[in-house]
């Protein structure tokens, strides 16, 4: 009888109409990401100062609302007198470029491996599966440090590092999807209908796993941005004087006891962006899952 004492879940009647649909959008996450996207896209056009414009005479100015702050440097300045707000705006572009490109590389590679392994099965799957296992068991930082030492520093290197370390997650999850889709009759009928293997992969399997890919990619976007910040923090990422968020965090670390704004504002930027990406991913997961969606 214990099961019956649980309150019954009452499903709200599906609200129809445009207004109801608007209300169900992830407003908070969406608007934060939109702001970050706009900052990244417009960048220098809306930044109040040049993010690399140093002037030791105005170094370590506190935020505008603190004593000694000035509204021409709303979030204060760093140890070289560069405007923190402008540097965060410039960092948004780097974070987004790295995040999206790394997700694209990892997602593309992971999807390809999942399609090949899942569809062909047999020894192809066995070999690819072991490679995926190996990738997933390698410590991310060790691989990243080695790769960063070997390759020359820069955005392209970071994208490669992150793409290379994250593709296995996609491959693992999507392979299961391929197996599930492959066993359905419409794939068998495509064979019967004379479709080539390439066409079956492209028109029958890939479109049916795209939902999972989108959700995974959105959730991974946050992880990737965080990883980029980690690498930059460790000095393995975007080299100075670029204004990557992780780099700003690293540079502000030594001043944190008496100039907290150097590290806190880029930290908040990282947190809000990653949080929004994760919230959007969660929302998409529910939205794109036909079982959880109430039409």
């Amino acid at each position, binding site marked *: 009888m214990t099961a019956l004492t649980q309150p019954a879940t009452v499903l709200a009647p599906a609200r129809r109409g445009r207004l109801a649909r608007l209300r169900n959008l992830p407003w908070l996450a969406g608007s934060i990401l939109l702001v970050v996207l706009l900052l990244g896209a417009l960048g220098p056009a809306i930044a109040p100062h040049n993010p690399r414009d140093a002037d030791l005479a105005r170094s370590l100015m506190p935020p505008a609302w603190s004593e000694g702050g000035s509204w021409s440097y709303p979030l204060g300045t760093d140890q070289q007198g560069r405007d923190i707000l402008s540097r965060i705006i410039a960092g948004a572009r780097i974070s987004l470029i790295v995040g999206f490109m790394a997700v694209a590389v990892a997602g593309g590679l992971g999807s390809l491996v999942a399609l090949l392994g899942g569809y062909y099965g047999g020894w192809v799957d066995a070999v690819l599966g072991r490679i995926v296992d190996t990738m997933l068991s390698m410590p991310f930082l060790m691989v990243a440090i080695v790769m960063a030492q070997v390759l020359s520093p820069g955005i392209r290197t970071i994208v490669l590092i992150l793409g290379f370390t994250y593709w296995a997650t996609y491959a693992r999850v999507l392979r299961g999807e391929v197996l599930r889709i492959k066993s359905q009759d419409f794939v068998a009928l495509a064979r019967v209908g004379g479709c*080539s293997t390439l066409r079956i992969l492209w028109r029958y399997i890939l479109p049916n796993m*795209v939902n999972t890919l989108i959700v995974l990619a959105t959730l991974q976007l946050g992880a990737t941005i965080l990883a980029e910040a980690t690498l930059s923090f460790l000095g393995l990422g975007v080299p100075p004087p670029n204004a990557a968020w992780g780099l700003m965090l690293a540079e502000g670390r030594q001043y944190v006891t008496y100039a907290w704004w150097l590290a806190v504002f880029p930290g908040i930027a990282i947190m809000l962006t990653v949080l929004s990406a994760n919230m959007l991913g969660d929302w998409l997961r529910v939205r794109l899952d036909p079982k959880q969606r109430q039409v």
Partner: protein
Amino acid sequence: MTAAERAPLLQVRDLRTYFYTRAGVVKAVDGVDFAVQRGEIVGLVGESGSGKSNVCLSILNLVPKPAGRIVSGEIVLEGTNLLGLSERAMRTVRGRDVAMILQDPLSSLNPVFTVGDQVGEALRVHGRVSGDLRERVIGALQKVHIPGASTRLRDYPHQFSGGMRQRVMAAIAISCAPKLLLADEPTTALDVTIQAQFLQLMRELREGDLGILYVTHDLGVVAQLCDRVLVMYAGQIVESGTVEQVFHAPRHPYTAALISSVPVLGAKRRRLYQIEGQPPNPLAPPAGCRFHPRCPQADDQCRAAMPEPATDGNVTYRCWHPLNGRLSVTP
């Protein structure tokens, strides 16, 4: 009428499809001969695992590899031996000359494309887009009686009912005007009224020259729909003939037993007939006639050798002791 026109549409000779598993060789199809004429509906009946579906897969040369292999035989479609074709040539046969309908209407359509898109897919794959693709798609949907075809082609599969989806599958199958349609239990998942409508559709489709091989384990469907029937048991065809003859005067005890185990509406209430025992282990089928362990009239001859097909009028059977037009099976 020329000789080529009189030759059957599909002629299968001595087809053997084996599966090589770790536990041994499974002879899923073991020496099957039959023909399908133009405009004819041939029923293929048998228990689960008797090799019905593997016959269809063999015709399309889609037996799951690497375990399954067509060991010997000929599958001649309009004078061409399909087993001699390259994979590339076979791809143009699939869907264009030979089409197939499957059992499960829920998973037989690609959920992410519209129905119109999927009916057009077959036409695009085989490059048969003469004139307006949209018109062709609407034509195919109208042929299978989908109401409001011109508006419904923008709908997705989940917006269709099971019976309608089965029709869409039929529309895809006939869109390229195939010569042979393989129907693998297409009505098993449908309820009886929808099933009757679908069988009516099958009858209409064969009005052209379409030959249909209709796989089922429903003898009622065979009786309503088919011209001839093939009865399969453990990978072999044990009896074949016109539906009328096979149903009224089965020669093989297995056929007779199958027919006796179907309940008859309005008949005196009694215990339904059942065939004793289990279908044979496919890895080690019994020697001699494969039905002998379950056959009430088996003797030493049956245990020793499988009889060769014997023909009597319109019926061909493989039995040492054929029944003489009586339905009851008694030793």
